[in-house]
């Protein structure tokens, strides 16, 4: 109700409730992202971060609330048929926590597949784009390897490249930093920041406080199926007094060291 006067959001989640069987995981989540935002979604393991992202890309049915992506609205009830999701698919990209690479295709073809068949790009051009992306993420040497031949971090970066390839206006990344070494995280953070400077909108779940603090413009803390706290990373992650945030960070080494 409030804030409708502000510029129309790229993503708006209202009172999202989501349950697996009897177990209600999300109990009314409200999120609002303007274009060009870089938002970190944090919370305890099992808090429901992945569920939120999966709900946004219409992979998880939800019981109440609405999800609106740039005009396209998802409603409670069974997931709509793919044919009705065309519009949504063009607007949102996703990196899965478990990567979900196409096991029968080499790294490069994992990236080009959508470019060629969904965007109808020339094969040669698609491969150029794929290689440049893999290069930027420092996995181009493994471009010909099958997913089962990749290391954890390499697989993760290929998955990121695959999602970046189609260059969707809204990008959801589920724990993209999980198995990256510090240097790679830095690089990833940098390129993501560049992306949202270019107008893309990013919603990133992460357990890496430093990463969130240095790259996100805003942090959303998910707890007990609801948004516990929203705000500037520095504020939330350093000086927050909110119990949920405390629970998430309380044991943070940095804080203990001091």
């Amino acid at each position, binding site marked *: 109700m409030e804030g409708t006067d502000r510029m129309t959001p790229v993503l708006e989640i209202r009172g999202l409730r989501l349950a697996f069987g009897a177990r209600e995981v999300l109990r009314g989540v409200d999120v609002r992202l303007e274009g060009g935002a870089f938002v970190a979604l944090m919370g305890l393991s099992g808090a429901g971060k992945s569920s939120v992202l999966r709900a946004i890309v219409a*992979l998880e049915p939800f019981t109440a609330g609405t999800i609106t992506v740039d005009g396209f609205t998802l409603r409670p009830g069974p997931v709509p048929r*793919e044919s009705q999701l065309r519009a949504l*698919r063009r607007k949102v990209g996703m990196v899965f926590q478990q990567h*979900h690479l*196409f096991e029968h295709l080499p790294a490069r073809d994992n990236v080009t*597949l959508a470019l060629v*068949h*969904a965007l109808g790009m020339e094969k040669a051009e698609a491969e150029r784009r794929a290689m440049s992306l893999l290069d930027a993420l420092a996995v181009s040497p493994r471009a010909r390897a099958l997913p089962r031949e990749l290391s954890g971090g390499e697989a993760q970066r290929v998955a990121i490249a*695959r999602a970046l390839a189609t260059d969707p206006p809204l990008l959801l990344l589920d724990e993209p930093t999980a198995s990256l070494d510090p240097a790679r995280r830095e690089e990833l953070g940098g390129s993501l920041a560049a992306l949202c400077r270019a107008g893309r909108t990013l919603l990133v779940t992460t357990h890496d406080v430093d990463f969130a603090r240095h790259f996100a413009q805003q942090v959303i803390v998910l707890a007990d199926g609801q948004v516990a706290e929203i705000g500037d990373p520095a504020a939330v992650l350093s000086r927050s007094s909110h119990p949920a945030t405390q629970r998430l960070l309380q044991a943070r080494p940095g804080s203990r060291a001091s």
Partner: protein
Amino acid sequence: MAQRSFSRRRSWRIPAAAVFLLSLAGVTWLLAAHLRSREPSHEPPVLRWGGDPEGGAPYVEADPRNPSVMRGFDVEVATAIAHGLGRQPQFIPVSWDAIDQSVRRGDFAIGMSGVEDTPARRATMLETIPYYEFTEVLTVRAADRGRFRTLADLRGRRIGTLGATMAYALLMKASGPDGFTTVSYDDDVHPYEDLKSGRLDAVVLDNIIAARSMRQVSGLYTQPVPLEVGHYVGVMAPGNGALRNRINAVLLARMRDGTLERIFKRWNVWNERQAVFEARLIRDGGHGTVAVGPSLPVHRGVLATVRRYLPALFAAAGITVVISCGAMALAILVGMLIAAGRIYGGRIVSAALLGYVELMRGTPVLLQLYVIYYGFASFIRLPAFWASLIGLGLNYAAYESEIYRGALEAVPKGQLEAARTLGLSEPQILRLVRGPQAFRLALPPMTNDFVSMLKDSSLVSVLTVVELTKQASIFAANSGSWVLPGVLCGAFYLALSLPLAHVARRLELRWKAPTA
């Protein structure tokens, strides 16, 4: 390279093992056929003997005055034998080409109905000493008596005979060198009629049948020079040796005291050839007499017979391959559509498809072939070949669809979700992500079906298509035994399925399970 040679070695090892086992089985069987004894523990007071009433005079025929009483020289010989054993003869009617099986099954102790002494029969059954020596003779139209004196004169012509006879074997052998066509009949009347009507240029059958037919069909001429000499014997079940020897003794005795001569004279089939023949038999007490010179084709033994039938079998195998491959292609195509329909289709669609699958899987394919071939004939009259191909294809499609459905559902959902978020359409996902990974899972069961399709294709013989099994059974009927054709038939199917299985394995290795 190394890979290649390795796989080659492998591909050799398998047929080797297989063929070894196969021949093992075959041999056991032949062996067993010899060893197996069916002799009853205590001998009954009657001698049950089998003959074919349709054989007609002078062999076995129903007495017109009293159709349940049989007459003919075989009848009288059988009676003589029975009495010689101190038993009453009991006649068991049986169709001519079933005599061997029946006697083997023990329906009667001895079969006598113009039963020829052939290598095949000798290999699998027990034979008495021969009691009559006949000749295979060449009958032509009287007008051609000058032109067609020998088989060699009949190059490019059509020669008729009775299937499953020595004459047939003789023609099969000669047809190669002399280049004529052999036409096999099921009865001995039509060949001569067709000869007269010009559909044939010659008929080769034994002198008795020839003489009989000449009386009925006019304008024919039988060349005096016999093509071949053969013998009628009594056929008995393997292992019935004791009884056989006593019967042989009786036969010899009846030759000595002239009983046989009287019998044959009464049915005027006696000739001085018999005199010589019996004399020889009596001289050396029935030993080694059946061993006729190796020059005679029917005594060439197994290998020759096989060589004779190979061409026909190869041709039939061709049909089998074509129908199987065609049907399998259809099955795969339709099966994929059904599987896709069941996974992506709405409630109604998938329910209907499920109905189709259960109906096709649940009912015998034979029934379905009948319906397609005869049932639909009023709407669309399909040629037997196409009916077979479509029938088998649609039936197997049901099985394939289940295989694909299972395989498609086994592909990790996560990858499908990823594909969706990338904006690929469901058909694209099926084609690019789900299908390729499902295919490898489906490969082993698919190979199973392809291999069994090769054999199920034999069902189409009911639609008058002559494929491998049918050809083998023709072979069997003509060689009078199922053993050799059976083993050959098996070997052919094996030879067809081995490469198939091998290719499938190669494919499997190629697309090694991504999860591996």
